[in-house]
């Protein structure tokens, strides 16, 4: 414990965190603008009649036209974070608005959105405005050094993301069948030069699977170790650009590339800041003389912040292992699948039809999913049990309200995972309208039969 106390008192230069703050803020601001321009606010949040919610967060819904306001708030607060203007307020606002946006609709769940949410939560507790921020100008003081753990915290979070993503790749489909890359890569036949050649090669699918796994597992350590750092950074850039070329993964590669700069020494970041300063000075003259430079940033509310950050990391380390509490094939049941850095790990598709039955007369009819769901929602719903259950309840309520009597909701769902032949996914005989969402194992998911193809 003593060593830990000593660790907490260690100091380091504040510039890496400032550079991180600027990069993070600008990329998030751009992400929000990009999302808006692509028309996704309408197609994802406004057009659907029904939204899939996270368990316990059903009260979080899109707010009609006010949804645009949330995006404006989110984008502005990200920009303020970049500037370091009213930093604490800005990052709290960003965390809340971004997380609210993500919780509105489960269909768009992505690991990297979750990453942004928890990273922005962590940033609330870090003095990212200690140097090179607008706050410095207004408060007339800037800080030379900050606690070393503040930078280590971000490194640790990035390390967890990579390392856990690597651990998740250690499974037989990924390593010994090159699945799902064997499905995904050959379909990239349009790529110049490599499309018709490398992408079609069996050995290349294996090479990609294995190197992807090794990359994820070892990159945090290669970044930490000074002598391999530049090599590791080159790998980071290559890996993320390559995956960006291959897959529609939006901003995530750039977030990771810019994020991994935090591993570099302070001198490197000082140069970046000096460069930005030079550019700014050309446009506006800022009187930096009046700013008092204080050698060391003293963390306020240390007795609260340290335990909160420790608890945060304990949860981050333990939470991805919650799948061990459930039986069955994790990829099949997806119980404990999300929020665990399982990134691009499986190819899963389903065809799921709902049958509304009158429990007394046994009269039934099928539901046309496109009457209620957008294509994206239907796609996601078709192979994820919690989506299927939530939608079954929505349908049950809908038809009960329409005056149908003794409504029962049954589902015929066929799902194919990683190129295995499609098989029945949900017990056809279970009335899902009577099943409730919970953290308990979902007994109505049929076991995965690995033998088929």
């Amino acid at each position: 414990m003593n060593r830990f106390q000593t660790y907490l008192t260690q100091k380091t230069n504040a510039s890496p965190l400032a550079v991180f703050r600027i990069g993070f803020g600008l990329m998030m601001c751009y992400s929000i603008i990009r999302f808006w321009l692509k028309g996704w606010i309408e197609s994802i949040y406004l057009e659907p009649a029904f939204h899939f919610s996270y368990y316990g967060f059903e009260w979080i819904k899109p707010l009609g036209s006010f949804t645009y306001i949330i995006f404006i708030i989110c984008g502005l607060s990200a920009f303020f974070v970049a500037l370091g203007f009213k930093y604490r307020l800005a990052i709290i606002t960003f965390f809340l608005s971004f997380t609210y946006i993500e919780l509105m609709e489960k269909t768009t769940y992505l690991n990297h959105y979750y990453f942004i949410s928890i990273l922005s939560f962590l940033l609330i507790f870090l003095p990212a405005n200690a140097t090179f921020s607008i706050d410095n100008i207004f408060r007339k003081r800037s800080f030379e050094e900050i606690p070393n753990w503040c930078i280590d915290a971000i490194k640790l979070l990035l390390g967890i993301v990579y390392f856990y993503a690597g651990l998740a790749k250690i499974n037989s489909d990924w390593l010994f069948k090159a699945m799902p890359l064997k499905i995904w890569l050959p379909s990239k036949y349009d790529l110049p030069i490599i499309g018709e050649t490398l992408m079609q090669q069996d050995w290349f699918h294996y090479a990609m699977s294995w190197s992807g796994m090794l990359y994820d597992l070892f990159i945090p350590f290669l970044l930490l170790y000074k002598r391999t750092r530049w090599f590791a950074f080159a790998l980071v850039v290559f890996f993320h650009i390559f995956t960006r070329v291959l897959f529609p993964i939006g901003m995530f590669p750039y977030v990771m590339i810019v994020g991994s700069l935090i591993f570099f020494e302070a001198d490197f970041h000082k140069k970046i800041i000096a460069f930005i300063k030079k550019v700014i000075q050309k446009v506006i003259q800022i009187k930096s003389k009046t700013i008092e430079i204080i050698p060391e940033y003293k963390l306020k509310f240390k007795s609260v912040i340290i335990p909160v950050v420790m608890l945060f990391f304990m949860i981050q380390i333990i939470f991805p292992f919650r799948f061990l509490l459930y039986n069955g094939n994790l990829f099949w049941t997806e119980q404990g699948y999300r929020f665990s850095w399982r990134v691009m790990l499986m190819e899963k598709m389903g065809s799921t039809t709902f049958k509304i039955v009158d429990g007394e007369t046994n009269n039934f009819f099928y539901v046309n999913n496109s009457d209620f769901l957008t294509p994206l929602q239907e796609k996601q719903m078709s192979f994820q049990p919690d989506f299927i259950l939530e939608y079954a309840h929505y349908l049950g309520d809908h038809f009960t309200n329409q005056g149908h009597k003794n409504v029962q909701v049954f589902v015929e769902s066929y799902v194919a995972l990683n190129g295995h032949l499609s098989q029945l996914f949900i017990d056809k005989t279970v009335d899902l309208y009577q099943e409730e969402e919970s953290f308990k194992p979902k007994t109505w998911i049929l076991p995965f039969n690995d033998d088929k193809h």
Partner: protein
Amino acid sequence: MIKKIFPVVLLAIFIAACSSSDDNVVSDTPGTTPFNRGALLSNFADNLIIPAYEELNNNLAALVTSKDDFVAISNQANLDRLRASWLTAYKTWQHVEAFNIGKAEEILYHFQMNIYPTNTIDIHNNITNSNYDLTAVNNNDAVGFPAVDYMIYGIGASDTEILEKYTTDAESAKNQTYLSDLINQMKTLTQDVLNDWNTSYRATFIASTTNTASSAANKIVNDYIFYYEKGLRANKFGIPAGNFSATPLPEKVEGFYNQEVSKELALEALTAVQNIFNGTHFGASTSGIGFKGYLDNLDRTDLATMINGQFGTAREKIQALNANFYTQINTDNTKMTQAYDALQAAVVLLKVDMLQTFNISVDYVDADGD
């Protein structure tokens, strides 16, 4: 420390990787030759799509002639010939309905050819008012094969009454005009689509092989599955059998007024679907590259065999039905829903397994992935 361990781990893993991939060398060889999507599209264009449109265009020319004869002399013999021409064209139509692409998509051809049940109120309003735009969206259910079906089988209770509608009836001239306009319009539209294929679209179609949402290669796959699910499975079976409603809706069968051909048309459609899958040339038994060939190339002959097997099962179930689905639904709807279930089983294989194997970018989903 890391420096020493790392190469050892790397080496161990590399050896493991090589030895594990060796097991798969034999079974994986087909996947190493990239599939030629251009060849697939050429086969579709030259041997399935264009020949089917040419045949349909000829059939419709014959229908126009029979119609002209019937309008000139509205007797039973000419009515019979008109009906025969209608059925021939309607059967050929089943071979083009899955190809909602190019000009057809642009001019909303499909919505003007086979939307059923037809709306007889709209038809009679059009006839009475004599002032109609057959291309208008609100006339989609008052034109095409289903509207002609009504005009030649349903406008009177018996053949005598039908003939009266074109001879002695107060509105006989207007009825003749509407029937004539309907058929001429079908011919014009089809000619437009065919011309486009024969002049410019063929080349565009064949060259569009990329794996993007808007490419012909992807669209043809998506269109095919959409047609199978909606045009064949739901429209011809599911909807009239009451699979999507509280009670059966037998009046929604295809060729409702004819009362004899819903099964014949459905079987023709299934043949068309199977021909596209296997790349079988229109009106011939020779086969080129189809989706089956694509699956073979991706080492999924097992799936192709299953899909053909399921088409076969569905065909047996359909063959067991009454020639008139309206009668079948009213007497024993169970058989009808069994046919639906057999067709549905293939939806899963096409939409889930085949689509996953092709890893086609789906045209309607636009969002980031992980």
